């Protein structure tokens, strides 16, 4: 951790003085740190890439706000965190992710994908009624057939289809940005 701080800070000070080579390796390094930071918090590959790039641009255009008397990693972390909160807000996602790492854990190994996916799914399904929730889980997650679900729930097949369809529509309005795959 100490080494990361020292390495990045030295590169940043050289970059602010106009050293292009130092700046290129700083940004490479920063991109790697950011991929870890966002990767541990978000599941969607595209969102992670977007945030990494947006944060790199912010680091670039607001580099004058770095005070070389203070730690570089704290400055970078504050920007990354701000961009994450902004992303969560503008996508109306609930803030179920932890924003801060314990400083020494910032480079720790990522949580497994399926663990995150499960948490996210439960959070998302909070938005629909219990019936819709159970039907979505049965059809879309467990992969059971419409006929099977209809007979076990006592609903008609078309009622199951309509309920699932409405629930998905509601969820995509709530969370998605026009990414409805039916």
């Amino acid at each position: 951790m100490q080494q990361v701080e020292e390495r990045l800070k030295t590169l940043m000070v050289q970059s602010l003085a106009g050293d292009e080579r130092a700046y290129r390796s700083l940004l490479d390094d920063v991109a790697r740190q950011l991929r870890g930071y966002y990767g541990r918090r978000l599941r969607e590959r595209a969102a992670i890439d977007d945030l990494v790039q947006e944060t790199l641009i912010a680091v670039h255009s607001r580099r004058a706000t770095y005070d070389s008397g203070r730690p570089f990693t704290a400055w970078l972390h504050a920007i990354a965190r701000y961009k994450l909160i902004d992303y969560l807000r503008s996508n109306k996602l609930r803030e179920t992710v932890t924003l801060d790492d314990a400083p020494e854990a910032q480079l720790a190994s990522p949580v497994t994908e399926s663990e995150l996916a499960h948490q996210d799914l439960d959070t998302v399904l909070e938005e629909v009624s219990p019936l819709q929730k159970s039907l979505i889980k049965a059809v879309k997650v467990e992969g059971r057939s419409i006929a099977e679900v209809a007979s076990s729930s006592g609903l008609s097949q078309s009622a199951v289809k309509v309920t699932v369809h409405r629930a998905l529509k509601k969820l995509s309005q709530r969370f998605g940005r026009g990414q409805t795959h039916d």
Partner: protein
Amino acid sequence: MIDPMSPNPTDSLIERLASELKPTARSAVSRFICLGLMAGACVSALAVLWLWGVRPDMPAALSTGALWLKESFVVALAGAGIFAMIGLARPDGTAGGPAWIAIGAACVMALLAVLELAGAPPAVWKTLMMGKTWATCPWLILALAVPVLIGSICAMRSMAPTRLRLAGAACGLASGALSALVYSVACDESAVAFVFIWYGGAIVLATLAGAWLGPRVLRW
């Protein structure tokens, strides 16, 4: 399909950003903030000089403690606002120190106002508190704060504030206090109670306006 020959978008972004690198001065943040504030304050100062001019009794007033107390009050608040802006312009910035300076200045002024009233007969209390211009003074200070607030928000928008409400409040405090400083050149009220209530009130309103604007205009 990923084409192995085309560079990954993050790498080409880094390449582009690195090629745009220009050296950056250490003092860029404070310089830019002062520039924004000065630009706004110049507009307000011109408006004051054009509309009312310097108060006619200025030469005599310069030798009174009342004038210097009034100026010290607004200068302390302006300083607190400017340092708060410089602090909050950084993503990991705080403004604890400047906030205490502002609170301290307000407490000292409140105490002096109470002492002034206590030492005067109750018959003149109303004059000490309301002066001749209480109905216009705070609104003029607020109006004169608008150009300064615009300048300070423009400067703050190019920075990296992460606590937008606080950063906006800092812009409002600096703008309100600088506007009061400019206005005091034309205003001949000298009672401590008047300055505390009406100058202080206008500066508080400007600070609140900044806090309201912050999350709306400072996002980046």
